[in-house]
């Protein structure tokens, strides 16, 4: 019995807890991608850079706050910086829409043109970010590091294995839940939210019913940028902030959005957790987990790892390809791909 408990704690500590946090970050990112897709009908390749940009602004504001002695210990100061970062990033994204995307929207350009345009936006943002904050790592997490440290957990329960829960992981999950609840209330309860869904379902019909397309697009960008900033900052708090990472994370985010069904918010959330858990569970080394479960004689020689951690992106990709082959519209999509 003790062995089983210890085994579960190991699994929770190294796979489940990080998986939930990572899944929340992916879900928030994928929500942003899916909202833009639902309304503007293109996959925004600049979304990773939007996340990175928001996180960068949050870091700058955090530094200013820290320099002035402002702190909300035990919580990280970055949470205080978040509203400012959201305002700035939403402003930048709306300006991009006004001066870049709007032209093509009015021309009703092909989806591919939008994708290439978003590559241009991605270049500009990537350059600005690397120019302003530099290409190196930044650690900006402060406040209490752990909600429960491994040692406290061992003392508390008397088990041999510890379960550490980082403050940033809890904040990530709480923030994701709050964001999702608010987003769904907005989409299902408010007039604006309903008009957005109507527009996403059928552009022409919605416009004919008197829905202001320009306003819907504006709101979609605002929501997408807000979610991107939150996701980017949480990711930076949880790991560390590296400008390059946000390009790599684009693939799992797209995978999450597509697996769930591009344009479907529920799908984006489910997809986010699905991809995160698949990545974590497939690249987790089960040696210690099995050590508590199996008698010594049955122990496997290696790490009992299905796939090296270096290939975790391959997991997201394989899930993506399987989805595209079997059910291209995704799990939660009524429209066909």
């Amino acid at each position: 019995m003790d062995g089983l408990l210890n085994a579960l704690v190991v699994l929770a500590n190294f796979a489940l807890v990080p998986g939930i946090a990572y899944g929340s970050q992916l879900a928030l990112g994928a929500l942003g991608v899916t909202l833009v897709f639902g309304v503007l009908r293109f996959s925004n390749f600049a979304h990773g850079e939007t996340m990175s940009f928001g996180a960068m602004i949050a870091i700058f504001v955090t530094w200013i706050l820290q320099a002035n002695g402002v702190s909300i210990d035990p919580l990280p100061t970055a949470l205080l910086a978040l509203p400012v970062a959201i305002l700035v990033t939403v402003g930048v994204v709306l300006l991009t829409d006004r001066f870049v995307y709007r032209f093509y929207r009015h021309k009703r350009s092909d989806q591919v043109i939008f994708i290439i345009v978003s590559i241009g936006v991605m270049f500009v943002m990537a350059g600005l970010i690397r120019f302003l904050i530099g290409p190196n790592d930044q650690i900006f997490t402060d406040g209490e590091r752990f909600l429960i440290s491994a040692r406290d957990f061992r003392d508390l329960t008397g088990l041999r294995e510890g379960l550490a829960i980082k403050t940033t992981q809890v904040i990530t999950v709480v923030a994701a839940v709050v964001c999702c609840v608010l987003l769904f209330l907005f989409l299902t309860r408010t007039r604006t939210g309903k008009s957005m869904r109507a527009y996403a379902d059928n552009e022409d019909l919605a416009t004919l019913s008197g829905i202001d397309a320009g306003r819907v697009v504006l709101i979609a960008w605002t929501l997408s940028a807000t979610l991107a900033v939150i996701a980017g900052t949480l990711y930076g708090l949880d790991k560390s902030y590296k400008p390059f990472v946000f390009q790599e994370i684009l693939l799992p985010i797209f995978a999450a959005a597509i697996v769930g069904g591009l344009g479907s918010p529920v799908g984006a959330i489910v997809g986010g957790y699905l991809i995160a858990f698949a990545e974590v569970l497939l690249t987790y080394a089960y040696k210690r987990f099995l050590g508590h479960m199996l008698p010594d004689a049955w122990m496997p020689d290696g790490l009992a790892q299905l796939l090296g951690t270096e290939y975790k992106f391959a997991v997201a990709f394989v899930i993506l390809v399987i989805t595209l082959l079997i059910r291209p519209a995704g799990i939660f999509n009524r429209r066909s791909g």
Partner: protein
Amino acid sequence: MRTVLPFVIFFLLLVLVGVLQSWSLAFSIMNLCLVSAVMALGVNMQWGYAGLVNFGVMGFSALGGLAVVLVSAPPVPEAWAVGGPGVLFAVLIAIATAALAIAARRIFAERVARIVATGVVVAVGIWAVADVLEPATDAIEAVDPSFTGFLGGLGLPVVLAWIVGGLLAAGAAFLIGKIALGLRADYLAIATLGVSEIIVAVMMNEDWLSRGVKNVVGLPRPVPYEVGLREADWFQSLAATLPIGAVELSSLIVKGCYVGLFTLFLAVILWLAERALASPWGRMMRAVRDNETAAEAMGKDVKRLHLLVFVIGSGVIGLAGAMLVTLDGQFTPGTYQPLRFTFLIWVMVIVGGSGNNWGATLGAFLIWFAWVEAEPIGGMVIDVATSWLGDASPVRQHLMSNAAQMRHVVMGVVLLLVLRFAPRGIIPETDRT
């Protein structure tokens, strides 16, 4: 006129670099321009001729680079002795798995049964490959890890590796295209981007194959070495008559040889591409691109054509990737990034003029030139713009040290401006009737 003038301007700019900065730099830029042009031609075939979005350029050029290692690097007999049979056996198992999976798909008619059967075959196959491969690769990587630790190549001439690089990339493109080409444009873009990330991840982590992040250095060259040149009699008599130093002269001659070789390859590919575009086949490709449904109704096999052009274009990209690694003399998997190896090439094609081979070539020349020269020019601009802050200012120092990053901004702005105001590029596609 519209075709020739931009090229003239480019060469004038290059001469300016030669005069103001150094001729060695001008030659280096020219070499990379030529390689980029080959890459851009590959993308142009896929996007410009057929409207296929391939965001996996990085992966195909990395495969070309890998081919240089596999073909031209000197073999490591000890590694082959300890791990060679294991690796070959694993390859055999992988091929058998693929064959069985295809067979399973033929045998089971019902959808669910087919998916389950394929899944089981693939899972067992992967497990078997991993089981055989792991001890073999461990043994290989243990062979003198600080110098070799990989199988090495075949030690064959490097120009042969370029062809192999093209074939390797084309083969990979065939497999990817078989699966992904039916997809909608944005899915294809994401899928190819994903494949390229995975290809590079494999090269970074499979040390037995490519030494991973330890890099393979000292790859053989198709042109003479500087040291060898300086010992030759004709070189010494030439150096005596010229006002520049022997070291610089030898470096210029080596770079000049590369320029000649690359120009030859570019010219051949450009000629073939132009011939293809002007032929009935090119006309058919344009018809498919402009109206797939109509072309299909006329009895054209759109799927086959897409696959063909995807494979050919990727092959050309692979060739360029091999040329690039040869020019560097080393294979460094860690340096492959999508911004530089995929999206920059796309900027070249769009800015130059998609659908026009001369346009793609010009785009490659100008964009690579801008990419290199944005660094000193950006530095100067930042220097002037922040001079009021005073030299001791940390903000100024920080911005100065990141000035090189402005090149990304320049590329993005150029791309957006061209898309907005000249969406057909500098040299637009010729309107043929």
